[in-house]
């Protein structure tokens, strides 16, 4: 099994490399390819089992959008062909049509999905988060955090939402839909160690997306205790969620 981590030297904010660390701990036999910004992504030309990219600075968003732009048709084909992607935090914005700041165009996204991102760096939107994921086997609660300068707007989220928000911001303030789930492409605005906070989600990815049978994520009992406590805590009546 081969897992490609895109640009970890710059896509590493908010503890998100813990997602990769958790994959490593849970899949000790997997090969991890860390592609630097100056390198050529492996998934463009070879089969990989999962591509991961996490939160980056706003300047890095521009650089990465420009870097991947020549390959957008290849990337679209990879998604259409069912390659597994996990995209967290503002890395999601790279896959939209464009990124705006204070109404001004900052850069084009890859345009693979029908949405645009609008930010205002004078504002910071922070929340704790609970969303419901319909895995096909039942509803799974996904918990986490968001720390963002803005939101995303477009049809992609109505058509292909990953989660239905029950606490916190959706993909924007107006809708409860959150993230994108198309074929095997999963993207979410949730920031931080998403997989660490959600061992059931990792277990599902391992089983359903990576074909790993009979193996639990690492530190499963301790991870589940923390997850179950957080789910109970966040769903207490009257729990504040916006910081």
């Amino acid at each position: 099994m081969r897992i490609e981590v895109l640009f970890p030297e710059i896509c590493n904010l908010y503890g998100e490399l813990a997602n990769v660390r958790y994959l490593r701990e849970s899949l000790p036999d997997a090969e991890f390819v860390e592609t630097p910004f100056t390198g050529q992504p492996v998934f463009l030309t070879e089969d990989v089992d999962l591509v991961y990219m996490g939160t980056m600075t706003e300047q890095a968003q521009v650089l990465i959008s420009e870097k991947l732009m020549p390959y957008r048709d290849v990337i679209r084909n990879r998604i259409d062909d069912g390659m597994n992607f996990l995209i967290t935090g503002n890395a999601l914005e790279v896959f939209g049509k464009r990124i705006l700041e204070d109404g001004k165009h900052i850069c084009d996204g890859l345009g693979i999905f029908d949405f645009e991102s609008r930010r205002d760096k004078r504002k910071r939107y922070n929340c704790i988060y609970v969303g419901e994921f319909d895995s096909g086997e039942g509803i799974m609660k996904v918990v986490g955090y968001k720390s963002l300068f803005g939101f995303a707007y477009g049809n992609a989220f109505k058509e292909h939402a990953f989660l239905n928000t029950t606490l916190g911001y959706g993909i924007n303030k107006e809708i409860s839909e959150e993230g994108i789930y198309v074929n095997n492409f999963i993207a979410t605005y949730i920031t931080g160690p998403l997989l660490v906070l959600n061992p059931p989600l990792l277990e599902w990815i391992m089983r359903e997306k990576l074909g790993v049978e009979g193996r639990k994520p690492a530190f499963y009992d301790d991870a589940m205790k923390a997850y179950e406590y957080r789910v109970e805590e966040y769903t207490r009546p009257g729990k504040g969620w916006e910081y």
Partner: protein
Amino acid sequence: MIRFYIALWASKLSVIALKLTGHNATDFPGTVALKLCPNFLKYVSKPSRIIGITGTNGKTTVTNMITDALAATDLKVLSNKEGSNIKTGIATIFMKGVNVFNRSTYDLAVLEIDERSAPVLFPYFKPEILVINNLTRDSTMRNAHPEFIAGILTEELPKTTKLVINGDDLIACSVAPENERVYFGIDSLDTDTDKCINLINDMRVCPKCHSKLEFDKVRYHHIGKVHCPSCGFKSPECKYSGSNADFDRMMIDITENGKTYSVKLINDSVFNIYNSVCTTALLREMGYSAEDVVEMMSVLSIVKSRLDEKKAGSYTLIRQLAKDKNALATSRVLDYISSRPGRKEIIMMMNCLHDTVQWSENTCWLYDCDFEFLKNEDFVRIIVTGERCLDYVLRLRFAGVDMSRIKAVFNYDDIAGALKLEEGTDVYLLNGTDSIKAADKVEAEILERMRKKSEGGME
């Protein structure tokens, strides 16, 4: 202006009221002033010279050092060294610096300035010199990432402000490239390595060509000397460069334009060595001669340890602040403690209690923080506490800490009883800024248990 004078007088009255009721008057008077006159900072008179100190870590220390060093001069110095560094705190200190007729009574202001507050401060005053000690990750929610903070400073800084920047911090160096600047740094330390072992390293990529940077010397995280093997970009030459740190004499050599002089260190931690070099550079840029600076630095008191030690019977309890949500600052604390000799029990109370009341702590920072330092088997027990203790347990498992050494305690009342208290083992109590009072109570309970155990009595 009537509105301003009402705000000024009300603010001054609030200081008297706060003092009579035994409260600190560092923030509230400014809040009153700004409430009554939102443009208070525009109208309040200021000293003719303003020096600012900003950055993520070390602002308070440098502000204290500069203020103490200037005490021996005949300058009348206004400083917020004991106060708040955000807009309300700055309004408070400027209010204190004028009489009831709004006439400034000080020659110079030395201001610790919150790096995030630049947009609401710099429209109202222009520092002659601004020190940027470092820019590193801090609260995810408030500060996002250091590049964002560097961007804020670049946008908001007056063009006339001269910068005194830590040249060993390339993120700080990126601020306001058009402003006049000098760099300070440390040439070498015995503890230098060429590989960053920390989880946070926000300067891995060349800012010019985006190739991987190579570190020649690493102090901690991204602080050190680097070069780009692809395009030749490298750390800037420092006008003020520290070397030959001597911890027996507590002195460090400063080389400036080929001449070397020695100044006093206040502490042997890398953080504080930088603070001493920074203070030296600032005093020199303020116009004091090297001889004067050596003399001014000599009055600064040495803090032998950053740790607050208390003895109880045969036991030692060591208290340390580890900033909530600040992965880098907490990493520095864990690194420092792990480097100390002897067996240890450590209690972690860096719980964001204020967040817990309103919503819940954002724990992303746990995975940026180097809890790996606790793998050291000198830590015989690690007690994680409060509502996030299960998250800490999981984080320590990631760090490779054996479960038998971890104890999760939800209730603070149970912390003292969870200690092993073995002979020859020191106890470290880490608290965040939110949990100071709670840690005071836990500290008292631990000391009581230590005393009883030393006396051989019933616990």
